[in-house]
């Protein structure tokens, strides 16, 4: 921003401080710092909105000890992309209605955003989104996970998602009988 000539140093400092407040600095569990649009952070995360409103944002980096740097980078990337994207008419008008769908479909750029992630990165991002109260990012990441599960057998899903089967053989047999309608053509 160009500062008008003839104005005092104090004025200049004040303007810089104002500009600084457009972003907040977040610190991952492994000590890396990330800048994120304050407006987008407050709009997309209930937890960050609460911290901003409550004045508990640290200019030197607000500690988010539960979130690793890779997940936090994705969170910040998502917020900043969101800050720059123009919401489509579909997104604006999609009030939650069970007559159409109980949740919002991801935008094209959101699909691409999660499609490029490895499985580990995706699950770390889900946990980060859940921790930060980011409803929209949870929608997008959970949508992706459900897409990955569709049409797969339980064994395939366990393998892809690294799920440990902690049932006894008897318990499994009982569930399969109870849910015979869902397994009849296996």
């Amino acid at each position, binding site marked *: 921003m160009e500062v008008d000539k003839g104005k005092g140093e104090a004025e200049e400092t004040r303007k810089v401080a104002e500009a600084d407040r457009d972003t907040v600095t977040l610190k991952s569990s492994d000590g890396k710092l990330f800048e994120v649009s304050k407006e987008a952070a407050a709009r997309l995360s209930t937890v960050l909105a609460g911290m901003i409103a409550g004045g508990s944002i640290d200019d030197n980096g607000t500690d988010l000890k539960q979130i690793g740097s890779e997940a936090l980078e994705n969170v910040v990337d998502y917020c900043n992309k969101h800050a720059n994207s123009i919401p489509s008419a579909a997104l604006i008008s999609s009030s939650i209605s*069970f*007559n159409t769908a*109980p*949740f919002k479909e991801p935008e094209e750029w959101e699909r691409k955003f999660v499609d490029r992630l490895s499985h*580990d990165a995706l*699950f*770390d991002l*889900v*946990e980060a989104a*859940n921790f930060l109260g980011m409803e929209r990012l*949870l*929608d997008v990441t*959970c*949508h992706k*996970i*459900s897409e990955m*599960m*569709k*049409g797969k057998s*339980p064994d395939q*899903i*366990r393998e892809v*998602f*690294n*799920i*440990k*089967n*902690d*049932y006894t053989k008897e318990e*499994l047999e009982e*569930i*399969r009988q*109870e*849910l*015979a*309608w*869902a*397994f009849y053509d296996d």
Partner: protein
Amino acid sequence: MAIVSDLPPEVLDLILVRLPLRDAARSSVLSVAWGQSWRQLSDLDFTSSPCDRAAIDAVLLSHSGSVRHVRLEVTVTDGHLPNVQTWVDALSKKMLQSLKLSFNAPSVPSVLMEGQDTEIIRHSVQKQ
């Protein structure tokens, strides 16, 4: 390394409600945590997968949580209407927010469950 088993129950629910009911049911054999999430699924859309009456009975019987939204299509076969009242009774204990029932019969049976937290959308579909 993150594994999906570690996801909290509320996140498993967000994943399961996006699956057709049959896929959501099948996920219950993955692990104990997934099985619990299936039995507490918050939206039951019986129109998302082919479900016969026995399937609907079984799902409602094993469900152990509250339900926000239910969508049911009631099919009259050989002139017999299934016991919708039993299903509605089972659902009435579950903090339901919306129940969408549709019938493939010209007349709609008098299913009664009007309550403060419940909106019933009743409509009949003309017999094909």
